């Protein structure tokens, strides 16, 4: 049924020719910056955004006056004019915002890339700033219900009268069906979380730095929403991350080794809701992630075996594991087996994964921290450096309109 759905819904449509893609190899990320990641920043999101952006601009060897474009998520609460006024950008020429929450993370880079590739701007900064731990928490239903009741999104009105209020439960619905269809045992799912926690022990910026976890710790942690335990969930974080995007021509003069964009893609398949796409033929998969993967491979000319390091958006461990299946790193229903024992996804394994700790153990900056880590891997400056890493695949939020990148050295 899945194959039929994919064939009819996606593959029948023509896709833009690769040789007309102005982004491929013509755009690069030349600066990355961030704040400290914490559980309580005691600073406002404007302050965090300013610091991360200044750090990214410094990292690129530029000054604020070089920046002429800004790119954010619609979810970001920092007022862009206020931010511009605070940073002191003399004349901004390009702004854009991407919808879909974390699903838009990689899309911000794609849109920034489109702007610089077409000459609308020279240097575009993508940023995300949030006090997710100390401020507004997406994982809490009481505040979320109020937000959702105002959200101009049709389907939520059918869900929250039943107390179906939080991303974890929405993901749990996918996870239960996936476990049912593939016979996945609940207690076998911990290796993904465990390996990410190992990576965090090498990364002093990670929220869970200095807090190692055993498999028994994983099993002993409370169920939050069955079938998901505490350490299947991402870590609420206060912090900000920023990225500087420019053309490959300008990138040659950059202070840092550029991370070139081989491919960038977005996908919004029909019948996609925000994390609750339950009226598609399948509930056990992530067709938008599959499609993004297919587009990234088609545009880049690479395949899953050519990816040296993957940074997968994992709001929940199961979301990361199912992405391994959708992106072709293993077969359908084989993601848990792929992670068994952890060796395949460790730094010297066949697919080093979320090498700074991911959203589960480094920080939840809506996936912008994953893009920054991919850039560090290609520069050779990661805390768990993959030897000779030349290609990196990054994804954005699964189970909603999503996006992805393949970067190269």
């Amino acid at each position, binding site marked *: 049924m899945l194959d039929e759905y994919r064939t009819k819904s996606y593959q029948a449509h023509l896709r833009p020719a690769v040789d007309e893609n102005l982004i491929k190899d013509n755009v690069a990320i030349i600066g990355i910056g961030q704040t400290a990641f914490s559980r309580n920043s005691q600073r406002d999101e404007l302050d965090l955004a300013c610091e991360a952006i200044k750090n990214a601009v410094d990292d690129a060897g530029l000054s604020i006056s070089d920046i002429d474009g800004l790119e954010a998520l619609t979810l970001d609460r920092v007022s862009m004019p206020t931010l511009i006024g605070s940073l002191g950008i003399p004349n901004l020429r390009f702004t854009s915002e991407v919808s879909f929450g974390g699903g838009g993370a990689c899309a911000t880079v794609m849109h920034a890339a489109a702007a610089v590739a077409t000459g609308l701007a020279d240097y575009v900064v993508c940023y995300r700033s949030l006090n997710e731990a100390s401020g507004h928490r997406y994982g809490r239903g009481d505040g979320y219900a109020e937000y959702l009741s105002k959200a101009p999104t*049709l389907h939520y009105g*059918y869900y929250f*009268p039943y107390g179906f*209020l939080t991303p974890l439960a929405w993901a749990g619905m996918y*996870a*239960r069906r996936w476990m049912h269809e593939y016979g996945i045992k609940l207690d076998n799912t911990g290796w993904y979380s465990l390996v990410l926690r190992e990576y965090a022990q090498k990364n002093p910026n990670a929220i869970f730095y200095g807090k190692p976890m055993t498999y028994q710790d994983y099993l002993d942690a409370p169920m939050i929403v069955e079938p998901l335990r505490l350490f299947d969930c991402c870590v609420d974080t206060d912090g900000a991350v920023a990225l500087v995007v420019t053309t490959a021509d300008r990138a040659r003069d950059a202070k840092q080794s550029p991370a070139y964009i081989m491919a960038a893609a977005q996908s919004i398949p029909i019948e996609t809701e925000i994390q609750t796409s*339950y*009226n598609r033929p399948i509930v056990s998969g992530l067709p938008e992630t599959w499609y993004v993967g297919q587009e990234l491979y088609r545009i880049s000319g690479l395949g899953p075996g050519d990816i040296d390091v993957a940074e997968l958006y994992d709001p929940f461990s199961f979301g990361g594991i199912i992405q391994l299946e959708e992106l072709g790193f293993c077969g359908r229903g084989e993601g848990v087996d792929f992670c068994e024992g952890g060796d395949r996804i460790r730094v010297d394994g066949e697919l080093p994964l979320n090498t700074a700790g991911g959203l589960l153990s480094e920080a939840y900056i809506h996936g912008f921290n994953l893009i920054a880590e991919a850039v560090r891997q290609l520069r050779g400056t990661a805390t768990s450096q993959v030897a000779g890493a030349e290609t990196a695949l990054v994804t954005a939020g699964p189970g909603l309109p999503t996006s992805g990148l393949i970067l190269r050295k």
Partner: protein
Amino acid sequence: MTSSYDPTRDVPRPARWEVLYRSSGPFWDGVASGKLLLQRCASCARWLTPPRPMCPGCQSREHEWVQSTGRGTVHSFATYRHAPHPAFPAPHSVVLVELEEGPRLVSSLVGIAPENIAVGQAVEVVFTHAADDFTLFQFKPAA
């Protein structure tokens, strides 16, 4: 033992469909009168769930409302072990019901403890007055 869900509490209401999305009006009006009505394209017979003004299969704006048998199976479910909201004390289960007709609806189950819910279980619709002016559709294990 029944679900901990207590519909007499002040539960969050659906979005103001009469303002934002008028297509949902007949669905909730149907629920208020004890009927589960599904929207179907009058041109190509595609189910439109949730209701919407245009069929995504053939772009027709003509549709009809068809009363569901209210029978279905549990396609998936999730059980909160920590309450997400004061109106829904844990443990609280939310189910995804696949109706006989095909569409799937998010709902909750009455008359069964969360630990006894299973994928594939047969269920049938019941209607619950959640407040004076608000009726919910829920499901119970099929007889």
